[in-house]
């Protein structure tokens, strides 16, 4: 398979990459890991005028940096690095865990965190985890850098608020809650998720939960938080009744599509079932 013709640009700096994006005025695509982009090019689902290959920008985009309670992960940090990084497993264990659900060994050796978030696949694991952990997206354009709260980043299926000339340069994570649980169900091994659920929080000595966030993937056209469900559990002890109520409340945000993988009705059916299971497991001390 061969993509449609494009200009291949290999910038030496982030500033050059941003310049190139600017010059191509929305017609260029950024090539990071290429694990989603290259098949789409081959199938000609995309015909960008230029590919801006940022793989040479490891120095600027490939770092994991800690500052106080914050952890900043460069856009070009690959999944395999997240899987093996002691810093990530200590500070963002949810990220280290969930990355193993992505693709396969070869895909994880190439795919990048920034690429996944920029791709904004509604079933993608990385967007979901960033949302659950309240990350911020750092984007650089010709006018400088801006920080976008992840809650305002996704705009729809494969769509986000990045301007055409902006490059996603990093994800910044606040201190992660001490407890987390992830679940994903697809039709087959490694397939796109029909549903994915993340719940995070911290349990105090009294058995009450704080900083509760529940996020759903594959259900809407973008990863979404379930604020009503989280509010029901915030400051509460999680007994079976509270969990069941929260599981039902999670349906408030669900607006699932009908597609080849599942009907909207089936996806709606899955939401309370799996939110309940994830919360029950988390309450029982079964993390990740």
């Amino acid at each position, binding site marked *: 398979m061969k993509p449609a013709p494009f200009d291949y640009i290999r910038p030496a700096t982030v500033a050059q990459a941003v310049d190139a994006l600017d010059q191509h005025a929305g017609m260029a695509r950024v090539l990071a890991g290429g694990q989603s982009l290259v*098949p789409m090019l081959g199938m000609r689902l995309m015909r960008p005028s230029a590919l801006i290959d940022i793989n040479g920008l490891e120095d600027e985009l490939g770092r994991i940096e800690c500052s106080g309670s914050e952890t900043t992960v460069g856009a070009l940090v690959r999944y395999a690095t997240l899987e093996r990084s002691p810093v990530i497993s200590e500070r963002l264990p949810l990220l280290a865990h969930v990355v193993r659900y992505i693709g396969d060994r*070869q*895909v994880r050796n*190439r795919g990048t965190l920034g690429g996944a978030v920029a791709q904004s696949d509604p079933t993608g694991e990385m967007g979901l985890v960033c949302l659950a952990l309240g990350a911020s997206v750092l984007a650089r354009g010709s006018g400088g850098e801006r920080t976008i709260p992840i809650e305002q980043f996704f705009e729809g299926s494969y769509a986000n608020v990045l301007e055409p000339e902006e490059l996603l340069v990093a994800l910044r994570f606040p201190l992660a809650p001490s407890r987390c649980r992830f679940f994903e169900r697809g039709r087959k091994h490694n397939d796109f998720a029909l549903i994915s659920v993340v719940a995070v929080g911290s349990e105090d000595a009294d058995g009450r939960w704080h900083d509760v966030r529940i996020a759903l993937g594959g259900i809407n056209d973008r990863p979404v938080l379930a604020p009503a469900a989280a509010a029901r559990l915030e400051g509460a002890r999680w007994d079976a009744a509270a969990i069941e109520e929260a599981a039902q409340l999670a349906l408030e945000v669900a607006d699932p599509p009908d597609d080849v993988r599942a009907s909207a009705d089936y996806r709606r059916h899955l939401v309370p079932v799996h939110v309940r299971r994830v919360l029950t497991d988390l309450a029982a001390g079964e993390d990740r």
Partner: protein
Amino acid sequence: MSDTVEITVTVNGTVHREQVSVREHAADFLRHTLGLTGTHVGCEQGVCGMCTVLLDGQAVKACLLLAPQLDGHEVETVESLAPGEELDPLQQAFKDAHALQCGFCTPGFLMTATALGREGRALSRDEIRDELAGVLCRCTGYEHIVTAVERYLAETPARERADV
């Protein structure tokens, strides 16, 4: 705008300087330009894993890399495993465990397992299966492939695995 770029890439220890089409993927470059047809091309969309090669020691799907991306990097293909008449210990393990039938997927499994072996980790059967999940086989049903890799990891000293 140029349709081709010059790249310098080390493949199986040999440095090549070649003019490549920017639209060509790395598997086609290896096969058509360098004549290394051991790297097989299956789905060309990153699903089947036939085209797995090592890029700077890491298993990657060559169909998801553009040829110009190889510039300045080191590639190892299945041809690197047995330069002479004798099989590499991993290939021998595949032969002994009946881990291939038609052989089309074999280069993908061999290169994925080569990278795995060099990590030097002790792995359970389930973990081996998970690490190999990016390569599909439509003949053997995987049991023998997992067995071959399991034996290879158990029986070949880590140092030898690293020295391919």
